[in-house]
C-alpha cells in the first residue's frame, strides 16, 4: 500500500494529457483480514485486497462520474475515457462543483499495525464467555475484521488530502432458544482501535446477550393504546437517520417535499433534543476528515435544544437551492445525553415499550412510520413486564420528537456514534 501516491501522479499525467481542465478524484487501496464464526465455531478466514478509483470529470458545467478498481495504467486510461464520455453525455448544470483549494493535508486515524494474535484471542475469549455465562444464547454469526486503507484525493483547484486508517470491528448476530422455542435475531457490534477490553464488555454487547436470553418467552400486547417508547441507542440512531433523510437531507430539500423546508431557526423538537454530526469527537474512531465534495469536514449541529439549525446540504444541493452548504457528508452522530438514568426513565412510564429495533421501511415524506417493535420489552407501571412479539408501533417522526419524555444520561459508545436512550410519548402501540 505504498505506491498510491505514485499511481496518483501517473493518473494526473493521464488527465493532463487529455487536456482536462477540471476534475476531482480519489484513489484508494484497502486490506481486510476477517475471521467468521458460525454457530459458535470458527468457519471462515477471509483476506481481501481491494482498490478503488473514483473520478468526476467536468466539461464546462457537464459532469460525469466513474468508478473502477483497476489501477493499472490501462485501467486508469479507461477510467478517464469513461469519465469524459459520461460528462459529454450529461446535461448542463452549473450547480455541480467541488470545494476551492483546501491546501494539502495527511490524516492518520486508528491503528495501522494490527495485533492479529491478540484479536484472535479476544474472539476466542468472547465465545468462551458467551458459552459460560449465556448458555441459552446462540452465536449465529460473529465477524471480526481488521481493515486498513490508504486513500488520496486531489482536484484541479489544488486540494490534496491523503488518509491512512485502520480499525478492528466486531459484529455478532445472536438468538436464544430452549427446546423448540426460539427468539428472533438480535445483533450488535462496534469498531475500536484498542484491544485492551474483552469484547463482551465493549459497547452494548453484554446488554444484548442479556436481552436476548430474556426474550425466549414473549407476549403480544393486548389491543391498542397510546404509550411511550424508550428507544435503545441503536434504535434511536435508526430513527435519527430516518429524520435526517426525511426532513433535512439534500434530496427532500431539492425536490421541496421536506416538511422542514422553511423551519431553520424554528423549534421542531423538544428542547431536550440536541443532535450533531461531529467527526472530531474522540469517542468516534474513524470520523470523516474530508467531505465527498472537496472540503475539510466540520462538525455540525443539526438540532440544538429542539431548534433546527440547518439542513444538511452538500455543495450541489446548496447551489441548486441557494441555501447554506454544510461541510459534512458523514454520519458521525452525537446526541447529547440527558439527566435521568435509564432506570428512572423506565420508572416514569405507565405503559409502553423499551424498543431495541424497528422493523419497518423508511417513512414517507409525511413522516408517518409504522412497523414492528423488535427486541422489545413491555413496560407497565414503571417496570419491565415481559418481552413482546407481534407488536406494532405507529406514529409520526416530526410529532414524535416534539414529545420527548426524557433522554438517558447513559450513552452507547460503539466507536461510530455517541447516542443515549430516547423516550418518546404519544406512540400508538398495538398487538394482535
Amino acid at each position, binding site marked *: 500500500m505504498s505506491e498510491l501516491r505514485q499511481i496518483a501522479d501517473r493518473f494526473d499525467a493521464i488527465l493532463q494529457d487529455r487536456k482536462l481542465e477540471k476534475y476531482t478524484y480519489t484513489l484508494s487501496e484497502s486490506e481486510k483480514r476477517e475471521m467468521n464464526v*458460525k*454457530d*459458535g*465455531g*470458527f*468457519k*471462515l*478466514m*477471509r*483476506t*481481501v*485486497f*481491494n482498490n*478503488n478509483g473514483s473520478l468526476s470529470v467536468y466539461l464546462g458545467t457537464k*459532469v460525469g*462520474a*466513474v*468508478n*473502477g*478498481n483497476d489501477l493499472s495504467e490501462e485501467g486508469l486510461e479507461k477510467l478517464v475515457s469513461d469519465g469524459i*464520455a*459520461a*460528462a*459529454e*453525455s*450529461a*446535461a448542463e*448544470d452549473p450547480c455541480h462543483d467541488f470545494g476551492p483549494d483546501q491546501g494539502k493535508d495527511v490524516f492518520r486515524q486508528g491503528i495501522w499495525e494490527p495485533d492479529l494474535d491478540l484479536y484472535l484471542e479476544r474472539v476466542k475469549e468472547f465465545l468462551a464467555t458467551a458459552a459460560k455465562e449465556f448458555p441459552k444464547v*446462540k452465536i*449465529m454469526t460473529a*465477524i471480526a475484521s481488521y481493515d486498513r486503507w490508504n486513500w488520496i484525493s486531489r482536484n484541479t483547484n489544488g486540494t490534496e488530502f491523503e488518509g491512512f486508517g485502520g480499525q478492528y470491528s466486531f459484529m455478532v*448476530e445472536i*438468538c436464544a432458544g430452549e427446546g423448540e422455542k*426460539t*427468539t*428472533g*435475531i438480535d445483533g450488535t457490534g462496534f469498531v475500536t482501535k484498542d484491544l485492551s477490553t474483552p469484547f463482551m464488555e465493549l459497547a452494548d454487547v453484554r446488554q444484548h446477550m442479556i436481552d436476548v436470553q430474556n426474550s425466549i418467552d414473549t407476549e403480544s400486547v393486548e389491543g391498542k393504546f397510546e404509550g411511550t417508547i424508550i428507544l435503545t441507542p441503536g434504535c434511536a440512531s435508526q430513527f435519527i437517520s430516518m429524520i435526517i433523510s426525511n426532513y433535512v437531507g439534500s*434530496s427532500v430539500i*431539492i*425536490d*421541496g*417535499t421536506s*416538511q422542514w423546508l422553511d423551519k431553520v431557526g424554528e423549534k421542531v423538537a423538544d428542547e431536550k433534543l440536541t443532535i450533531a454530526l461531529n467527526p472530531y469527537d474522540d469517542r468516534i474512531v474513524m470520523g470523516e476528515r474530508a467531505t465527498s465534495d472537496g472540503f475539510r469536514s466540520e462538525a455540525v449541529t443539526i438540532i440544538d435544544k429542539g431548534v433546527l439549525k440547518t439542513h444538511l446540504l452538500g455543495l450541489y444541493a446548496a447551489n*441548486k437551492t441557494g441555501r447554506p452548504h454544510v461541510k459534512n457528508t458523514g454520519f458521525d452522530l452525537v446526541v447529547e445525553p440527558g439527566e435521568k438514568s435509564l432506570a428512572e426513565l423506565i420508572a416514569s412510564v405507565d405503559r409502553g415499550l423499551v424498543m431495541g429495533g424497528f*422493523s*419497518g*421501511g423508511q417513512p*414517507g*415524506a*409525511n413522516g*408517518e412510520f*409504522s*412497523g*414492528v417493535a423488535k427486541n422489545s420489552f413491555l413496560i407497565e407501571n414503571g417496570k419491565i413486564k415481559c418481552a413482546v*412479539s*407481534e407488536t*406494532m408501533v*405507529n406514529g409520526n417522526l416530526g410529532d414524535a420528537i416534539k414529545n420527548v419524555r426524557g433522554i438517558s444520561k447513559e450513552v452507547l459508545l460503539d466507536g461510530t456514534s455517541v447516542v443515549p436512550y430516547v423516550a418518546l410519548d404519544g406512540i400508538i402501540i*398495538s398487538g*394482535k
Partner: protein
Amino acid sequence: MLQDVIGAKKELFADGVQTVLRGQENRNRRVVILKGNLVQNSRSEGRGISARVHDRGTYGFASIAEYTTEAAEKVLKAATENAKFLAKHATKKIDLPKSYGMEMIPLNGQIVDVEQKLIIELCQTVDKYVESKYPDLASRTIVYSEDSLDKIIYSSDACSGHIVSPRCYVYVMMSAESKDGAPVELFKAFGGYGSFFDHFANPEKLYPGIDDLYQKLMDKKEGTYAQAGYKTVVLGGMMGGMLAHEAVGHTVEADLVRGGSVAGPNLNKRVASDLVTMVDFAHTYDGGLAPLPVYLDDEGTKAEDAVLIKNGILVGYMNDRESAQQYGMAPLGNARGWQFSDEPLIRMRNTCILPGKNTVEELIASVEDGYYLIDSGNGQADLTGEFMFGVTCGYEIKNGKLGKALLDTTVSGVAFEMLKTVDMVSDKVEWSSSGFCGKKQPMAVGMGGPHMRCKIMIGGR
C-alpha cells in the same frame, strides 16, 4: 465480457482440500434525474479474482482486485493458507462428498453495454413525459439502474462454467400533496433481466405503466389510513412475492435453520394451507426464463429448482454444500456471492408461491370488509417467521368492492401461522426482480406470487 485467464491455474489446486477459483466483473450504470435535474450520472466497474478452499469444515478465502493469472496464483495460495490456519482453531471437522459432478456449464448470454448518452436520453425522455403530462405533481424522480455480473468459475470437485447475469431498470417515482398538505408518494420499476435494448428500445412502452402509477397516486392522495387490527385481506401478487421471499424464504435458508429458525422443527410438518406450494426456481419458470436465471452457483453446483413447501407441508431448505450434507438434502445451487471479493452465502434465486384456481376478481368479491394490498416498498423477517412489509399501495374492500385508497401502512404476522389462513389463491403469478436482498452482502433476487386471500395484522392509527 471476461476472457478466461484463470482456467490454466486449476493445476495449482491443492490436494486434499476442495477449491473454487472465481474471476468476476460487476458493472453498474446509474442515472438519476430529480425534478428535471441530473443529480447522478455514474458508471462503475469492479473486477478481480477470488479463491475459496474448504478444509474439513473450515474455509479459507482470498481475493485480489486484479484480473490476471498472477492474481489467481496469489489468491489460491492465500486461501489455502487461511483454510489451514483456521483449521487449527476449528472445533468440528466435516468431510464433504468427493465430487458433485464435473460438468462444464455453457455461457448463458451476453452483456451488452450501451453509451451513457443513451441512458441519459432515455431518462430525459421519460422525465419530459411525466413533467408535461402531469404538471400537478409535487415532485418526480427518474432513475436508471443497471447491474451485471460476469463470472468464470472453476472448481476442483464440481461444475465449472462462464455465466452472466445482466439486469436493468427504470424507476419512476412520483409525489403529490394530499388534501391536508402532506406529501404522498408511489414508485414503479420497469425492466428486468437483460440489457438496455431488451427493455428500453422504445420508451413509449413505459407510458401506460406510468399513467397507471399516476392514477394510483391520485387515488392515494385522497386516501385514508387503514384501521389497525387483524383483518381479512387480498394480497396482490407483488405482496405474495414479498411474503415468499421475506417471511418464508429466509427462514428456510439452511444457515438460518442451523441458527435456530422456526423451519428447523417444522420440516415435514404443515406450515401453510394446502393451497400453498412454494419453489425457489433456478432458471426456468412455466416453460420460460425465470426473472433472474441462475445456472451455476459459486461452489460449482449446477442450479436446479428447490421445492420448499408442497401443498402446505414444509419439504425442503435452500442449501450450500455443507448444509446439504448436514440435513441430508442435495445442494441445488443457492450459494452465491455478489462481488468477486465476497464469499458465497446461501441466497434465494427466484422464490415464488405457485398459482391457484381463482381469479383476482373472485378474491376481491369474496371480502366483505377488508383490504386489497397491492404493493410493498420493503419487507423484513425474523428467525421466528415474524415478518413486516411496508404497504405503499392498497385499497379498502367493502362488500366485495374496492373503496378508498390507503395511505402508507404496514402489515405483519408470523409466516407459518398466516399461511394457514390462505383460503383462496389466484391463477396468475406476478414477479418482481428489481430489488436487492441484504445478508452481509447484497444479492439480486426474483420473487413472485399470486393474489391470496388471508388474514393478517395491519398497522394504522
